[in-house]
């Protein structure tokens, strides 16, 4: 078991009344799974992903990641856990504009206090694996959307995480680029055993996963195993 969510609730208080973003979410994810989260806008997909990614807290419930109770960890320990095991991929890529492709991929390694020589080796390896060695000195603005997302994924993988959380990774791409990215995820999942949790609107993309969780109004509506 990689992570487990027990009875997760999250709400916001708007003008005296409480609006639930997530209600009683229970989820167990095993190492090597490929999970898709689907649901209409406002159903709580991104919120759930952010909680799994430790970017956000739940108001109630328990979250166990790699045998540690996340909500009870101190900020520092949580950050440590998170830095080592979780990689994020965003719909809008979110590369740092002022950094080159190389530097963008290198950044998470810097925050892990990896030594310079080791960092060089890791980044070189990743660039090679993704076939973007020739683009390493370019800035994000010089790349196409598909290429930027490729860098985004490369960056997420640089720190060799156990799980990649992807928030509509193909949302800003055309269908051909989207397909390439999904194939990449599939390959990473199959060949490297990386656990992937993605939020998506597209049935087609969801079908790449081994399990699809449908959310509706903050609740788990249905779980489909493919």
């Amino acid at each position, binding site marked *: 078991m990689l992570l487990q969510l027990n009875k997760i609730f999250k709400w916001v208080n708007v003008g005296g009344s409480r609006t639930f973003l997530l209600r009683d979410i229970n989820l167990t994810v095993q190492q090597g799974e490929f999970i898709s989260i689907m649901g209409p806008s406002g159903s709580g997909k*991104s919120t759930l992903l*952010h909680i799994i*990614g430790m*970017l*956000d807290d739940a108001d109630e419930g328990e979250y166990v990641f790699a045998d540690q109770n996340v909500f009870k960890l101190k900020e*520092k320990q949580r*950050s440590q856990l*998170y*830095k080592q095991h979780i990689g*994020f991929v*965003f719909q*809008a890529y*979110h*590369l*740092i*504009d*002022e*950094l080159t492709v190389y*530097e963008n991929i*290198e*950044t*998470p390694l*810097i*925050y*892990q206090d990896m030594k310079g020589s080791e960092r060089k080796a890791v980044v070189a390896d990743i660039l090679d694996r993704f076939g973007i060695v020739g683009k390493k000195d370019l800035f994000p603005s010089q790349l196409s959307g598909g290429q930027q997302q490729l860098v985004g994924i490369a*960056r997420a993988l640089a*720190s060799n995480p156990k799980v990649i959380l992807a928030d509509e990774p193909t949302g800003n791409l055309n269908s051909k680029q989207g397909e390439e990215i999904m194939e990449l995820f599939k390959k990473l999942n199959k060949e490297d055993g990386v656990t992937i949790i993605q939020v998506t609107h597209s049935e087609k993309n969801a079908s790449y996963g081994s399990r699809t969780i449908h959310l509706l109004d903050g609740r788990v509506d249905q779980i489909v195993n493919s």
Partner: protein
Amino acid sequence: MILSYLQIAWRNIVKNKLYSSINIVGLATGIATCLIIMLFVNQELGYDRYNEKADRIVRVTFQGNVQGEKMNESTVMPPVAQTLKADFPEVEAATRIRDYGKPNLIYKDKSFKEDAFAFVDSNFFRVFTLPLIAGNSKTALVEPNTIVITKAFAKKYFGNDDPMGKIINFQDGNFSPFKVTGLIDRVPVNSHFQFEVFASMSGLPEAAKPSWTSSNFYTYLVLPVGYDYKRLETKLSKVVEKYIGPQMQQALGMTMAQFKAGGNRLGLVLQPLTAIHLHADFANDLSPSGDIRYIYIFCAIAIFMLLIACINFINLSTAGASKRAREVGIRKVLGSSKTELVWQFLTESTLITAIALLMAIGFVYLAIPFFNQLASQNLTLNFTENLFLVPGLFLFMLTIGILAGAYPAFFLSSFKPVAVLKGKLTSGNQSVGIRSSLVVFQFLISIILIFSTTVVFNQLSYIQHKKLGYDKEQVIILPAYLLGKNSEIFRQQLQNDPRVSNVSRSGFLPAGPSNNNNFFVSPGNNSTQLIKTLRYDVDENYIPVLGIKILSGRNFFTDFSSDSSGVIINETAARAFGWKNNATGKTLTTSLNKGEKKTYTILGVVKDFHFKSLHERISPLVMVLAPDPGMLIVKLKPGDTGEFLTSLKTKWTKLTAEEPLSYSFLDDRYYRTYESEQKAGQILGIFSGLTIFVACLGLFGLATFTAEQRKKEIGIRKVLGASIAGIVNLISIDFLKLVLVAFIIASPLAWYIMNQWLENFAYRMVISWWLFAWSAAVAMLIALITVSFQAIKAALANPVKSLRTE
């Protein structure tokens, strides 16, 4: 990691060229101002510190209060040094300086007028740290008629010859020839005395006189290490009783007890050597002194300049936060801790400061000659001589980097990644309150400076236009004593010159350096009512030449021999003696030596005229008929002054071969009295200009941000039919409100500060409402011009364009 911080910092600086330039130029201006002021303050505070015993040397001064008149003399009587050394074991050494004016010295065929000649005691070079390059510091000045000279002096007289043993002559023959027995390099610039020649005191008869009534000697004591000079000071009242008392009784005809009973005070007061330069408030000091108040003012300006520049950085960083927020969010997602982000932003602010510092050093090199000229200083920024500057500046850079960067760093690094990445951040608005207060602070300082500068210049103009009670125009002062016996011939020639209206013979001048004489008199025959006045020795032409108005009685007549015991007094004196309009014909009595008395009759009363600077109230004045042909006061008829001066020169050179003609205009002398205020005004003006410039840079940056942020709003408003004026108004009004708030807070502060400054003048302008209005208007106008540039640009933008990019 630091390298990667620096890299991203550099790229951000390059990317945001406008904001980076605003920050860098602002900080550079602030730092440069600060550096110059620090150099200045360092020099001023370092005065006389070159002496190894600087902390143990005190100067003995003579202070008192006689009939409500303050006395502040930096010189004391000849026996003070010896007496204190003999009577108090804690006085380790005592040494004296007797400034000897401007003698003409001769060596073979060379003759120069020396304006830095002093007699000093033989232990002088053991008290003050002025190492002798040649000669023995212990014995050099033991013998009479020996001198120690500076290298520059030696070069001037002896060229490259060895100066030791050379003989120098006095032109006027008062002294036997002097032999050079010692050589020093030079007196350091930051010494309160500046002499080229130190002559042996043992050749000066005056130095050995046991007189306690004349004081011409600057006297310094060396005290033990760690000894509090105040302890010695309390014991000095006994010295006054014991030595001054009896002689005063002889001179004034009253005992010390009577003198004190009249509310008078006299005493010897000690002053630490290191305090002389900045705290000197004495008549006849050895060098123009600094003023600790200007040190405080300049320090305050330096600090405020830096703060204002730092505020620009803070404001622009927080206003532009939304630009950086995404980066912060991503970095946090990639595993950065808050601390790491804080460090990253601090690196960035420090990098900006470093660039600004380099630029500032360039500014300082460019500005120093200008500042030196303006403030009569000789500052230098010399890294090789002052190695401490390098680590000092580095530390300074870090401090400013942190000062400017700390708040933005914490503000930016505290963004929540989820909020940022979802694009929910409406940032830039969270810190509006703080930004507004900071802008208010910037303008508060600017307005105070504008106001202060205005007041200073108004007071200067008040001084310039003040009715002085005498006419300073077309009056030339000539030191005729330089002509020796020929001075009377010269006077006759001038008197007969058709361009000259009249000539007076007196060394008592209403403006600039003047003779001065205290005069203790009693009205009528009542010797218990002793009043301190000033005595001016004048001739019968003095009053008409200066255009002084006679209120009652008459001027002196030369034909009346009895007029030598007649006096003319001013209104203030008449009041002090208790007379109203009936002063004429009354008598005054004064004590002469050996208990004799002399009685004067009042011939007339003149309207008060300002014979002292406007810093001082007009005091009682008694004029006696005692022409001094050494100084001529020449009133010209209206006409060509240049031509007159040429003929003057011809006349002069016919009468003397050696002495060059020197003259001064009375009005110039008057204006020069207020030179320090004029300079302070100019410096203040420049600093205010710079401060406002930096503050406006920041305002410009903020206006740019506002225009950018409200681009969409402006577009919509324009589509809905808003006019350009309406849009400009919309953006400008918020900033003008801030300036208005700043003005309201600044007014009482500025009023208080400038009132304090004006207190230094007995005669001063009135701070009226329009000065406030003027300062407010200037600040408003400058702010408006700054802001409206961006506002107009935003208002003129095509709304279609701005709405499409959304």
